[in-house]
């Protein structure tokens, strides 16, 4: 039998919604099989069914041709199925090794034999080329390494079939390259892989076949060699999608954000931003390209007042805003789409409508003399929800219940609606499907066209190159180069981001 996994006519309902409706997916031995669909199409649900977290209402699962009942993750593990979840399933306070052995501990005389476990972890990590530090604590390691830990967890349990749910959404380009390499190694070792991703490029690069689902319904399976990104996108969304975001030439005007000699320390007290200079003009989008951890977060936090700066100057419309409290910075004319929407962007236990007023609740017309006018707030929310196509049952629904994409749209609506002179967008499209990404890019450009300044931080070089009018490359807390997106290439950017600051024609240096 050539299929290692067959999911036949799977149906999974949640109260009020059919997440999977008669979906079939067949995985061949040794292939990388992509699962493609919009946000909320039902991909994660389907995989959770396979992994035993959900029980399907209908349908059959076969492993190596034999029908099986997967009622809990233990059974999935025993059947050789491992899953790398969309939201990492790691215990932050544990070490890498502890996370990997959890539930299948190596013991000697009743207690955990951590030395042996570490040795085992080191062995498989070397075998599959998954570099991790077995003794490091999860909260201290990069997202990329966390993901390798997730993969190791499945391999440690002897998984033959690996499910990756959106593994690349949280990775930097370097890390994505590494991950693709890892997947290829795994296939060589005889494993089979199901890969969920919104990035068509990745599908084209590594996958053999792709199954597309739309709104819970299976659309079909195609060979990657017989298709192209455009076809896939329209298959998935059900209409034509443009990739290259249409935009006119930028008409930069006066400087809105001027940063000079900025120094910021990170949470551990080490310098994160070093003597940084940057200017963003009205009517332009400046993209900051860089590998994660080069001071991007600290830079944003310093601008928005969430983190204390050591020295330097940050001017907004000519006014000094360095070390002002966040509210003052906001009122001076900034908008901020935060990198972590759950942590900073939303109060998940507030209705989505109340979240719309998170920056403005204390101002008229939402508040008069300290008393809130919820009617106005929800009126505003309703109109923004409509305008920004936030899919939610109503404005009274808790923000927690919305999908990531829709949460993000709500935040973007909230920030843009205040019409800030400077909009800071940190990874605004992380984890979103192509339709949503297109929508958000359009909004950013619109903002620029209205004569506003936009600062875009992203790890996606595609996004940076497509959307920005000017790219500032950040390396070790410094802007090492300013390049023109129209003339640069990913290779060149990649090199700059890696710190090789060769002088090349067309590359302006920041410190000039």
């Amino acid at each position: 039998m050539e299929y290692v996994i067959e999911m036949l006519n799977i149906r999974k309902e949640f109260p009020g919604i059919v997440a999977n409706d008669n979906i079939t997916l067949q995985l061949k031995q040794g292939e990388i099989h992509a699962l493609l669909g919009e946000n909320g199409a039902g991909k994660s649900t389907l995989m959770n069914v396979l992994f035993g977290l959900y029980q399907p209402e209908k349908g059959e699962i076969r492993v190596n041709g034999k029908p099986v009942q997967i009622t809990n993750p233990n059974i999935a593990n025993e059947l050789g199925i491992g899953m790398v979840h969309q939201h990492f399933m790691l215990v932050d306070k544990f070490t890498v090794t502890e996370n990997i052995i959890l539930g299948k501990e190596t013991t000697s005389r009743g207690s955990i034999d951590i030395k042996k476990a570490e040795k085992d972890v080191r062995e498989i990590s070397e075998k599959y080329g998954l570099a991790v530090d077995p003794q490091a604590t999860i909260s201290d390691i990069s997202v990329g390494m966390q993901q390798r830990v997730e993969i190791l967890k499945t391999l440690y349990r002897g998984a033959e079939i690996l499910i990756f749910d959106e593994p690349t959404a949280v990775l930097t380009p370097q890390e994505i390259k590494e991950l693709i390499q890892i997947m290829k190694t795994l296939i060589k070792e005889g494993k089979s892989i199901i890969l969920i991703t919104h990035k068509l490029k990745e599908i084209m690069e590594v996958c053999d076949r792709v199954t597309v689902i739309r709104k819970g319904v299976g659309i079909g399976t195609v060979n990657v060699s017989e298709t192209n990104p455009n076809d896939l996108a329209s298959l998935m969304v059900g209409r034509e999608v443009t990739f290259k975001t249409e935009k006119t030439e930028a008409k930069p005007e006066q400087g809105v954000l001027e940063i000079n000699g900025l120094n910021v320390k990170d949470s551990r007290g080490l310098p994160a931003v070093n003597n940084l200079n940057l200017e963003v003009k009205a009517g332009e989008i400046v993209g900051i390209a860089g590998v994660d951890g080069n001071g991007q977060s600290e830079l944003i936090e310093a601008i928005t007042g969430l983190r204390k700066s050591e020295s330097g100057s940050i001017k907004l419309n000519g006014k000094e805003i360095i070390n002002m409290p966040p509210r003052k910075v906001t009122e001076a004319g900034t908008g901020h789409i935060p990198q972590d929407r759950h942590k900073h962007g939303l109060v998940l236990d507030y209705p989505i409508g109340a979240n719309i007023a998170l920056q403005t609740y204390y101002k008229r017309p939402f508040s008069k003399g300290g008393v809130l006018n919820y009617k106005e707030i929800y009126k505003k929310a309703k109109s923004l929800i409509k305008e920004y196509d936030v899919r939610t049952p109503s404005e009274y629904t808790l923000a927690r219940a919305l999908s990531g994409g829709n949460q993000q749209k709500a935040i973007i609506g909230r920030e843009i609606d205040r019409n800030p002179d400077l909009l800071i967008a940190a990874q605004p499209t992380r984890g979103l499907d192509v339709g949503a990404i297109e929508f958000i890019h359009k909004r950013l450009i619109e903002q620029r066209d209205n004569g506003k300044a936009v600062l875009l931080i992203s790890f996606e070089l595609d996004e940076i190159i497509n959307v920005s009018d000017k790219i500032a490359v950040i390396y070790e807390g410094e802007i090492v180069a300013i390049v023109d997106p129209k003339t640069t290439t990913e290779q060149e950017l990649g090199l700059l981001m890696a710190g090789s600051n060769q002088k090349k024609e067309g590359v302006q240096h920041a410190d000039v």
Partner: protein
Amino acid sequence: MSNRTKNIIVPIIAVLLGMLVGTIIMLITGYDPVAAFGALWNGAFGDSYFTGETIRQITPYILAGLAVAFAFRTGLFNIGVEGQLIVGWLAAVWVGVAFELPKVIHLPLAVLAGAAAGALWAFIPGLLKARFRVHEVIVTIMMNYVALHVTNYIIRSVLSESSDRTELVHQSASLRSPFFESLTDYSRLHWGIFIALICVFIMWFILEKTSRGYELKAVGFNQHASEYAGMNVKSNIIISMVISGAFAGLAGAMEGLGTFGYAATKGGFTGVGFDGIAVALLGANGPIGIILAAILFGSLKVGALNMPLEAGVPNELVDIIIALIVFFVAASYMIRMFIDRISKKGVK
């Protein structure tokens, strides 16, 4: 069944289940449940005196419940209501005995002194939490004991000459009224019940209607997002504790200016602050819920006193019933499942 009806039915079922289990315990141990519940009812509402006493007991319960609930709604757990209540009691009485002023000034001043003292007592854990991230649960527990000893000391050494209680508060600072006395045959019912009800409104208004309430709740849910949105997380934590403490202090003022009219040294806690936790939780931390829960607990507590006399049943039985009610409310998921099953059957 709609969620709304369910939300109303579940606590009612919890109360009934609590009574049911209480009855079973009585049957097993050989007491007469009918007599017991009869005595309970008579002790709570048997005549105007007992009704007055019941309402009097409800008053501090409402305020203590508000104090716990307010902190809860803003992400804090105030176990220190007891201590804040004690200092509020003392402060109110202190103002009540130390000054002689016209009633329109004196009474409000004394009441406010109680609120202020409770607020101050809660300010300390609030500050420590905001400034040093010290867990408010421990600090409030410790502050309870400090309050107990300090107030005892003040009563003995400052407010009296080594006596065990203060003077009665001046008439101008008393919440009692001849009107209530005649209405309820000399029960200790006092005007405090209206203060408590006003406070229920105030809590609802602050939390649901003001931008301050919006901030307080947001900080309770997600400090990071609140900070990002420009709110001052630290001051909101402190404000939340202070408001909670003010409610607790008012509960004490009700005892000092209404129920007792004086402050006496205490060998142990009054228990009202801890009962406030049960009131708040049974009332789902909401205004109406708190009123209803306070009514229930107040009547059970006062009614229970009559049980040993009239029915020969130990009044601890009522404590068991109260505990069971709290338990069944906590485990209301069980009741909800049960209702769902029944109503499904009904449809089929």
